[in-house]
């Protein structure tokens, strides 16, 4: 192929980029790069093009895989499948606006492995950012988030019934979506945070008198289908996976939830 854009050192530079040169070759090429500005510029250009390609597709692996594809692999449902299916059904019934494709099996293992727990401050920071978080951001931010009394999120978690939204400042609206009892006797709530087209879904659990964010997913509200969330990160199902792992039985009924909100949460202050 006669390609005028192809430089004489491109092959070596490209291999250097991939870490595929042996140590001696790599060292000698790096020395040349240090000495020759043109070579350095070419290396930088190749690297930049490569980064753009990698970056452009980075988020795609976090998108939900179509259910029809999963269905091919789900010919022998197991216990875990029915748990997930149950949660999906439940969500669908209560919150018809949420897609359920990402509640499927495939994301479970990776989501749990990621063990994502995010500080609410970080969650809010990401919501406030002009665009959704860079791929990898969620996994990188593995710090657990405590929501202390006094935080507007605390009040929202403590008192707002599922399905009602509350403004928590910074143009962020917080809406608890469901409450459930955990296998170890505690309580957790799923809450959506939205700010214009950005959204985060968090799972917070009542612990030691406060709330702790156990998992978070980020999404972008798709304007083409108002009200729906389109998962936009590598673990869109982190929250669903965490719910499935922790939930005991069904989510609380509205009455049971109301009693909790009115009578105080167990676990004390």
């Amino acid at each position, binding site marked *: *192929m006669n*390609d*005028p*854009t*192809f*430089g004489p050192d*491109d*092959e070596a*530079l*490209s*291999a250097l*980029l*991939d870490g*595929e040169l042996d140590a001696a070759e790599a060292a000698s090429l790096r020395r040349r790069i240090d000495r020759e500005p043109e070579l350095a510029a070419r290396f930088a*250009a*190749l690297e*930049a*093009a*490569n980064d*753009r*390609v*990698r*970056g*452009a*597709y980075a*988020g*795609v*692996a*976090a*998108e939900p*895989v*179509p259910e*029809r*594809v*999963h269905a*091919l*692999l789900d010919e022998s449902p197991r216990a875990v499948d029915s748990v997930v299916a149950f949660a999906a059904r439940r969500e669908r019934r209560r919150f018809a606006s949420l897609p359920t494709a990402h509640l499927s*099996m*495939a*994301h479970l*293992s*990776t989501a749990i492995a990621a063990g994502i727990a995010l500080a609410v401050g970080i969650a809010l920071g990401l919501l406030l950012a002009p*665009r*959704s978080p860079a791929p990898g951001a969620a996994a990188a931010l593995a710090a657990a988030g405590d929501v202390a009394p006094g935080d507007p999120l605390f009040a929202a978690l403590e008192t707002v019934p599922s399905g009602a939204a509350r403004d928590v400042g910074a143009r962020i609206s917080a809406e608890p979506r469901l409450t459930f009892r955990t296998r170890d006797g505690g309580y957790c709530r799923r809450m959506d945070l939205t700010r214009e*087209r950005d959204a985060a879904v968090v799972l917070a659990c009542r612990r030691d008198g406060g709330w702790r964010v156990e998992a978070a997913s980020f999404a*972008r509200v*798709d*304007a*083409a289908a108002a009200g729906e969330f389109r998962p*936009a990160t590598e673990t869109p199902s982190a929250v669903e996976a965490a719910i499935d792992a922790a939930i005991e039985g069904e989510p609380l009924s509205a009455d049971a939830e109301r009693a909790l909100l009115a009578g105080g949460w167990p676990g004390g202050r």
Partner: protein
Amino acid sequence: MIKQGNKETAGTAREAMLEALPRVRRFALSLTGNRHDADDLLQNTVERVLDRGVPEQVDVGRWMFKVCKNLWIDELRAHSVRARASASPELAEEPVVSGEAVAFGELELREVDRAMASLPDEQRLVLALVAVEGLTYREAAEVLDTPLGTIMSRLARARASLVSRLQGPRAAAAKQPETSDE
């Protein structure tokens, strides 16, 4: 030879396939350029692998890449109409969303895809495997049944073409290509 009879290994293979799905789908998207075709290609890949099994001693994820690649090439041959010109008309099939609503990431994806679509198929394949999926040259060589040296030169050529197509962030709209390499 084939991981199918044994129930236990079949279960493991199934889990490995589930695990690999998001990346195989991304690979399919980096080849087809639109999600609709990517999902179809993914489905065909899974069906083919389920139908024929995975050889022992082979990484299931990489095997799926390989099957996906073969199906894509078959598809290209079958529909040579789909000569992917630089205009990349298949991108127009993406759901139309108002400019404001398109996330930055989506615009960037489209622009990069246009550049990818301008590459010869064999370069696009190796770039997708190495630059996007992070395979080593050896792994890519295995998936593509191609010698290491060829992998290396295709990658370099692919990147060199992209340098002239993707200059600076989102520059393509504003800047004419400096060289006419087609």
